[in-house]
C-alpha cells in the first residue's frame, strides 16, 4: 500500500515537473505573462524562507531573541554584498552557532 502511494506521489511529482515544460509553446506566453513569470523566484522562495526562519519545529512563532533571526540577518547582509552563495550560507550558520554555543 505504501509502495503504491509512493509510486503515485512520484508520478504526480513528475507531472508537476513535466507539464509546463512539454505543453507550453512560445506563442502561449504573451509579454505580460512572461513579465509576471520573471517574479517566480521572488514569489516562491520566501514561502520556504519565512517559515524556516520565523517558525520553530512545531509551527509556532519564535522568540524575538532567537538565534535564527540573527543568523538570517547576517546571511542577508553578507549575501547582499558578497553575492556569494557559500559566504551567505556559512555566515548565517556560523553566526547562528556563535549565539548558541559561545554566547
Amino acid at each position, binding site marked *: 500500500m505504501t509502495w503504491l502511494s509512493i509510486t503515485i506521489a512520484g508520478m504526480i*511529482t513528475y507531472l508537476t515537473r513535466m507539464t509546463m515544460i512539454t505543453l507550453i509553446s512560445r506563442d502561449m506566453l504573451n509579454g505580460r505573462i512572461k513579465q509576471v513569470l520573471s*517574479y517566480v523566484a521572488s514569489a516562491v522562495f520566501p514561502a520556504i524562507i519565512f517559515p524556516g526562519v520565523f517558525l520553530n519545529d512545531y509551527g509556532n512563532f519564535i522568540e524575538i531573541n532567537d538565534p535564527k533571526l540573527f543568523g538570517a540577518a547576517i546571511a542577508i547582509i553578507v549575501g547582499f554584498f558578497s553575492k556569494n552563495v557559500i559566504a551567505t550560507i556559512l555566515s548565517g550558520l556560523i553566526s547562528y552557532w556563535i549565539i548558541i554555543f559561545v554566547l
Partner: protein
Amino acid sequence: MLSKNKIFKRGILDVAPHMLSVIPFGIICGAIGVELGFNPYLVYAMSLIIFGGASQIVFLQLLSGGASALIAVTSVGVINSRHLLYGAVLSEYLEKLSILKKLIISYFVVDQGFAESNKYFKKNKNQKHIHYHLLGTGITLWVCWQISTLTGIVLGSIVPPELGLKFAIPLTFIAIVVSDLKKIDHVVVMLVSGISSLIFFDAPLKSYIIISPIIALIAASILLWRKKL
C-alpha cells in the same frame, strides 16, 4: 560559443555551493525516514521515485502520524506543485528540445537547480545548448540527494541535531533571492510571499507553499499593471 561540456560543467559549478545545505538535509531526511520505522528500501526508493526534498519527509511523517494514504499523496502533490511555476519559466528556454529530451530533463527540475539555471538562461538567452546547464545543476543535485539520503538511511542521524543544520535550508534560499533585494518591486513580492506563508502556514495539506507564491504573483501583476499607467 561554449561547448555542451563547458555549459554542463558551468551548471555543476553554479549549483555546487548549495550542496552545503542539500547534503546535510538529505542525511537528515534519510535518517528521519528510518527513525519513523519505515522500511529502508522504501525510504530510499522515494529519493528515486519522488526526488523531492521536503515532500518526502512530509509524506512519511503524515503516514506515521496515522494520516490516510490519500492525504499523504495529495500533500506531496500540493507541495511539489511549485514545479509548475518553474516549468512555465523554463519552457521558454527549452522549447526547441525534442519531446523526449523535454521528458528527460523534466525529471531533474529542482528548486536550487531551477534558480541557478534560470539566472544563467536570462544572461545567455541566445546561446546554443543552454539546456546542458539545467542538466548540470539537476544531475548534481540528483547525485548528491541520492548519496546523502542513502547515507542517512544507512548511518542514521550522524548529523548532530544540536547543530540545527535544518537552518541551512532557509539560508540556501536566502542566497538565491538576496541579489534581487536591490529591486523594490522584487522586495514587495518577496514580502507578500513570506508574510502569506506565515499567515497560511496551518492551511491544510501544506498548501501555504503554493498559495503564497500565487498571492505574490498576483501582487507582481498588480505592480506591473500600475507601472504601465
